[in-house]
């Protein structure tokens, strides 16, 4: 049941004035919240008190707060999106933490995701990878009837599982190698599984992997940290599929 128990936490937050400035941790003690308050709302509460004191609030990315837009990030107590599994930061509630606990909040750490300010990072690299080939090449208006190509339910469901990726970057943040393989493979898989995407599958996978490498993401060493931390539980079987698609495509060159 909803409770009005007040709880207090200490927030140890990374503050950084700009991309080139040097950052550091600042600890805000005894931030009052309740177990039914979300983590981001607790940051809102803290920000409100900072503004009251005339200080600049902590900057962090967030938008839908429904766990779907992929905007929120934050590395909380050693986990991207915090300690809850299968959930984004905006779906994290304070009852996950103990009264009086010190919670460490850091931005995503990866060379490809530079910090813009405080906890906000630039994930533009993900867009660039998608632009390299994450689409089916056809123009609006030219489509045939939607039921003209039957697609097996198994394939459609699996493509859907891959397509569930919200592009938040938790996989990169979790990976000790800063690898984006889970993200890229999810998109490659979705299209590779569907007849619409099959046509240009070889071209797509080569273009997207090349872009990923170019942008300085690391190499996958199959630690499975990405899969364990992914808020949408994207499986690394996607990575195996991408490897397969990529190697086959290259062998045909």
């Amino acid at each position, binding site marked *: *049941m*909803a409770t*009005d128990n007040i709880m207090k936490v200490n927030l140890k937050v990374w503050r950084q004035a700009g991309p080139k400035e040097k950052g550091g941790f600042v600890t805000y003690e005894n931030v009052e919240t*309740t177990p*039914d*308050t*979300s983590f981001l*709302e607790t940051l*809102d*509460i803290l920000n*409100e008190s900072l*503004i*009251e004191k*005339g200080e*600049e*609030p902590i*900057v962090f990315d967030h*938008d*839908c*707060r*429904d766990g*779907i*837009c*992929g*905007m929120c990030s934050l590395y909380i107590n050693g986990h991207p999106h915090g300690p809850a599994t299968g*959930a984004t930061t905006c*779906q994290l*509630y304070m*009852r996950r933490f103990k009264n009086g606990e010190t919670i460490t909040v850091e931005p995503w750490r990866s060379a490809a995701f530079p910090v813009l*300010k405080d906890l906000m990072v*630039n*994930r*533009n690299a*993900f*867009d660039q990878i*998608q*632009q390299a080939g*994450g689409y*089916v*090449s*056809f*123009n*609006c*208006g030219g*489509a*045939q009837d*939607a*039921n003209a190509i*039957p697609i097996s339910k198994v394939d*459609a*469901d699996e*493509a*859907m599982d891959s*397509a*569930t990726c919200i*592009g938040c970057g938790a996989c990169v943040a979790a990976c000790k190698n800063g690898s984006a393989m889970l993200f890229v493979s999810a998109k490659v898989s*979705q299209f590779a599984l*569907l007849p*619409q*995407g099959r046509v240009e599958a070889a071209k797509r996978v080569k273009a997207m992997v090349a872009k990923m490498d170019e942008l300085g993401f690391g190499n996958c060493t199959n630690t499975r940290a990405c899969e364990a931390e992914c808020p949408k539980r994207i499986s690394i079987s996607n990575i195996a599929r991408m490897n397969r698609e990529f190697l086959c495509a290259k062998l045909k060159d």
Partner: protein
Amino acid sequence: MATIDSKIPEGPIAEKWTNYKAHQKLVNPANKRKLDIIVVGTGLAGASAASTLAEMGFNILNFCIQDSPRRAHSIAAQGGINAAKNYQNDGDSVYRLFYDTVKGGDYRAREANVYRLAEVSNNIIDQCVAQGVPFAREYGGLLANRSFGGAQVSRTFYAKGQTGQQLLLGAYSSLNRQIKAGKVKSYNRYELHDIVMVDGRARGIIAKNLVTGEFERFAAHAVVLATGGYGNTYFLSTNAMGCNCSAAIAAYRKGAYFANPSYVQIHPTCIPVHGDKQSKLTLMSESLRNDGRIWVPKKIEDAKKLQKGEIKGSDIPEEDRDYYLERRYPAFGNLVPRDVASRAAKERCDKGFGVNNTGLAVFLDFSEAINRLGIDVVRQRYGNLFDMYEEISDVNPGEFAREINGVKYYNPMMIFPAIHYTMGGLWVDYELQTSVKGLFAIGECNFSDHGANRLGASALMQGLADGYFVLPYTIQNYLSDQITVPRFDPNSKEFIDAQKKCEAEQDALMKIKGKRSVDSIHKDLGHIMWEYVGMGRTKESLETALTKLKELRKEFETNLFIPGKEEGMNVELDKAFRLKDFIMMGELIARDALSRNESCGGHFREEYQTEEGEAKRDDENYFYVGCWNYQGDDNKEPELLKEPLKYEAIKVQTRNYKS
């Protein structure tokens, strides 16, 4: 008084769009390359319009406030998208979809627009499937459908509970293809601040780079706004935190009429507000109403005990429960349209039957479904929603609570209505052009298709219809005589002046140096709006609202405090700009609601209801689109213009969901 020309084509309803396309002016490919279009927003409408126009050959400048076009709030839509495919052979047709949408909108939508929407709905599904959107399928490999509120056929296509996400990612993929091809230039983390007019036409925008904090000038031959709705005027809503109405208000200030602002949709199944520190409300999918039963206690004593926390919902036996939707609307039961369900919940809570500590919640109960189908089946259908609910409120709705007189009871969910969608928006004609030449509005940003209430799974349909299949045609009718107009220089006087105006506004905001944060004032705004301009409105409440909003504007102008500097990223400053426009929007909503002396769809005036508490329309006096025309000054009252509605195909009736 300006006259309103909605430019509806001649001919019978079913032939209007075909006729229009056959006779409209087009731009040839060589000329398309010479024309630039600004598209603001990257949701379903914005991304689909930007990519389709680019595919045609226009040069597109595309803006979004998020860090990536993929994060626009269309992504949060759960349920599905309607189309009149009739794949289920259950008697669906373009006409039926058209009829359901007009009826669902309480006969306040423009007939011709809705018919066109129903007509192109089928193309949308084809387009999305070709893009690789993984819609749900049957074992035979063909597309699956589900049913949704307000319809008697299964016409909703879906991709798990993430249809909006998948459709948006489809549009985003087309957009990416055009970005790679160099036809779309994408500006992320940019926010529109003003629309630049040259010789009476929209010719560009001033946008703020939210990272560097600098205002930048962009010129084009036409400007398209796809910037969503104004639900966040109420502070607490199911909209994303960044959703705002500043672009629409900027257009309004430039002379674009704002139509039907009082039509605000309140979604019945949201998680109730738990405290004053809350920033956002969470929507639980409408699909829960398929198996969940909504109730409050019959006895006021039980309600009192629930409010004090002395008993739990599962302690109340069947005979003491009031399933008020089933009682009032036997034919549709728990599946009545959203506005009806929301109002009924409010009515019970107003009478003191609310079931949580604030008295503002009703139960959504799955005991009957679990007893009938077993927990496994119920969890298969709603497991992810149950988990989501548990994460937020620490109650597991599938958990057995107790047995009374041989009946097993499970923990119910608590729900309450919340602001979800805005049917009103910038007025547009049949071509989706606002009353400002060269300025177009698509998606939730315009007012056109949903009348006074939107049916579930229709928002996605409208956004994509506008972006993929309507605007790319109609905009050419405008651009065809612009081919000789050379590109505009963003360093010309009009642009420089507009930028200076934005900078001056920014200086003014920073200089207030009062005591209150943006959010604290926004919360006050939300409180006024919900209290006086919310689900039930009266003449008095609306007048109070207008007075209070005036005071609030004063408070904003004199007591706002923005920390930090003008230079560089300043999130509070950006929010302050938005709040300024939300206050303006609040006044518009209240004014429109006050002027509309009837109840219809999302607009419920308590003075105008039947004896049973149903909305009472006044078709004789209010059968029009209310268009508000800015008078050049925020302090001047806007002028109300009326676009009369003409129904040729449909007979206007009283909405009936009882039998």
